[in-house]
């Protein structure tokens, strides 16, 4: 096993840039998620790592050896990697056992070793009973497990996953998220995981790289990405955030909808426009005005209210028409039309980097 390192990696198709100067280091045994909307370059990055395509610029190193560069690219079969495809790509003319044993046969292992390894992985993936079935006779979840078993049995140095759960229904998807994390904790392969689903990324990843327009917008542990988004794109994509258009008053304070907010995140220059993000469930909602002198309060009117069971979801319109989403405990019911005071704690108001 080895670390995977991308250095200034770019891929251009004519004038279009699919991957733009991406640098990223995945430590030995780490699971990194490439997260982003479709067309952000995450799948192209993965296929570059796999060796299916050649970079236009930059390098890919695994364990200190250069595997990809514009001048030389080691073909996929020479990389000691495994990949799980979105479509699973199970071979329909082979049984489950034949599919899983394929990589071992290619490696010319002896019969007894193949049998032993096959038996072990089939039991880990709970597939023993299905060994003689053909892929066409399996359910989606079973196919997914065969695909996992086939990739893991060869004990790759690096494991690549391309949207592996997008073809499963919601219940199964949640179950498989934990399954993938469990298998990762068991085998500790260096893993690169591509997804557009933030919940999937949160559950499985050690590090998340949020990608947009071919670039890595932010790289960090899930908690940091969630609580401290650095750009408007990340704040919006991760979800659950309000992004307010404000104007800086001084180094830390901004004016928004006739009120003032103290922010964190970076130092501001007075008079410049600045985007401020604040999570829906960090906002306090109250009917009573705050005690005088209290900071970071804005007045507004409830325009919509939805009961969601464990929470209540409010839409509050401020004096200048700005709409804020607020997630509050379900116990208290404030009807639409009521005037309310919102508390946006200073440590939760993040001034975002300029686009």
């Amino acid at each position, binding site marked *: 096993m080895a670390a995977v390192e991308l250095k200034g990696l770019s891929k251009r198709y004519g004038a279009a840039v699919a991957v733009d100067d991406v640098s990223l280091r995945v430590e030995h045994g780490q699971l990194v998620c490439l997260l982003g909307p479709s067309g952000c370059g995450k799948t192209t990055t993965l296929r570059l790592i796999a060796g299916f395509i050649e970079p236009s610029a930059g390098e890919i190193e695994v364990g200190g050896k250069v595997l990809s560069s514009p001048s030389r690219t080691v073909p996929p079969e*020479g990389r000691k990697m495994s990949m799980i495809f979105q479509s699973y790509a199970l071979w329909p003319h082979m049984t489950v056992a034949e599919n899983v044993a394929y990589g071992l046969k290619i490696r010319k292992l002896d019969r007894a070793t193949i049998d032993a390894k096959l038996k072990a992985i089939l039991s880990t993936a709970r597939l023993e009973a299905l060994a003689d079935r053909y892929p066409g006779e399996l359910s989606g979840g079973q196919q997914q497990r065969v695909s996992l078993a086939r990739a893991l049995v060869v004990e790759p140095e690096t494991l690549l996953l391309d949207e592996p759960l997008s073809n499963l229904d919601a219940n199964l998807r949640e179950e498989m998220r934990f399954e993938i994390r469990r298998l990762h904790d068991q085998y500790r392969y260096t893993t690169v995981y591509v997804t557009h689903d933030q919940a999937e990324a949160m559950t499985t990843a050690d590090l998340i790289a949020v990608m947009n327009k071919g670039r890595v917008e932010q790289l960090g542990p899930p908690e940091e990405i969630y609580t401290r988004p650095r750009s408007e794109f990340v704040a919006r994509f991760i979800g659950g955030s309000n992004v307010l258009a404000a104007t800086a008053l001084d180094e830390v304070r901004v004016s928004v909808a006739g009120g003032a907010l103290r922010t964190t995140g970076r130092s501001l220059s007075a008079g410049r426009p600045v985007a401020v993000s604040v999570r829906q469930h960090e906002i306090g909602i109250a009917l009573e005005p705050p005690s005088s002198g209290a900071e970071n309060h804005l007045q507004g009117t409830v325009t919509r209210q939805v009961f969601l069971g464990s929470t209540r979801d409010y839409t509050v319109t401020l004096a200048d028409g700005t709409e804020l989403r607020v997630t509050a405990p379900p116990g208290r019911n404030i009807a639409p039309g009521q005037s309310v005071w919102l508390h946006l704690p200073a440590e939760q108001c993040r001034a975002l980097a300029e686009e």
Partner: protein
Amino acid sequence: MTRGIDLSRPVLVAVAALLAVMIVLPVGWLLVVSLTSKEGGFTLANFATLFTDPTFVDPLVTTLIISCSVSAICCLVAAPLGWLVARTDMPLARTIRTLVMASLVTPPFVGAIAWEMLAAPNSGLLNQLWRLLSGMPPDEALFDIYSLGGLIFVISCYTFPYVFILVANALDRMPGELEDASSMLGAKTWQTARLITVPLALPTLLAGALVAFLQALNLFGSPAILAIPAGFHTLTTRIWSLFQFPPKPELAAAASVPLLVLTVLLLRAQAMALGRRGYAVLGGKYGAPRPIRLGWLRVPAVILALFVLAMPLFLPYAALFNSAFSRVASRIVGPDTITLHNVKFTFLELSSTMPALKNTFLLATASATLGALLALMIAYIVARKAMRGYRVLGFLATAPLAIPGIVLGVGLFLAYTRPPLALYGTLWILLIAFVTIELPAAYQQLGSAFHAVHPELEEAGRMLGATRLRTLADITAPLLRSAVIATWCFIFVATIRELSAAVILFTSETKVLSVLIFDLKESGDVGAIAVLSLTMVAITTIVIAAANRLHARPQARPA
């Protein structure tokens, strides 16, 4: 289902009756006559003759040898070529694919005539060229097209494109990730090809082999042109010879039965080969396959492909153009000797040209219109399950697929030379033949077009208050228009080229273009043959190009 007047029963009965006239009657008479003795009693003597008389057994054996050889050659040529075009970075891949498709425009009997011009032992252009280069005496020949080998070669030239299209399409549709997954697990390119690609493509190749076998089995034109001068018969030419004076229809009927039975069996085998499906596509989006890098082999590969294409395309057309514009067909035409004499002769002096052209256009238009309408009706009824018994209709519309053209010709001859429908000698019998022959393909085309129009599109119209007929006019018809036009063109073209049924059913009053060309062979007027052949190919090309343009127009695709 619809309220109000229930039209389903009369429509069903009418369509079923029509199909019976077209299919059941000819095949029925064929079987009856084959089991009837001259005196009118039941007999198996015709079949006894068939399987003992060497003049029947030999053609049967010859036909099987030809079919097996053609099938093998087609697979050997089409599979590598299809792979090169679909899966590698060979230059000109797109052009080569188009040219292979284009070689299908050539009617096989025209190809056979062109190869006569190229490789007849004495006058053949290739043999002349060889003698010129090697200094051999005039009675030496490099190629003899009038031979079993020559016939197999020519049939293969015009059959391998079918196999090619099947293989190339299958390779196109095969998800690239199936190969990528193998590469990721460490398999080298050739290991992936051997263990993944080839096994997945095998069912398609098997189906292709059967298609080629069937094609060779039921072909009439090429063997009639090449085998008869060489002094041997295939099953189809033998059946045809039984209609020459003195006619022996009862033997022709009996000889048609093995052809019919073999065709039915092979079609079943083919359905099984394709029905197992090379691969189940298991949800999700599949990536396009990565082309395989040929490296220094790119140039040899494209040269090989162009060499293969010379056989059905470049060489024959060179020969046809040469003969059309030369006073003496066996001389290579130069700037001084080029002449329009043959064109003038064919269109102005040859008395049978104009009637044949008129008959051909009349029949092609009528067959295309009637066939497309009939296919549309049946496809609608089957696709929307619009009435009870729709399955029977679908089956009947597909059944002619199993009836070789020459067998249908014999059956129609037997059925309609007697009351109550004595149609022999009229254009009607040819119309019935052509519509019947083209119905299965037309029905399949329109059936899949109906599948593409999701019923919910119609239901959405109904929910907004439109009647069933109104939705058909406002929604279904516009969506199907280009498919219907394409089907019409398809039948039109196929009718123009049809020879094997027409050659049994024509009379001097009802000659069509294909029969005229075939007939001119007897008088040996090579110039006129070349002109008429090129005319036929030109008409075909224009109609196909028109259909393609219509089809290529931006069409609302079902979301």
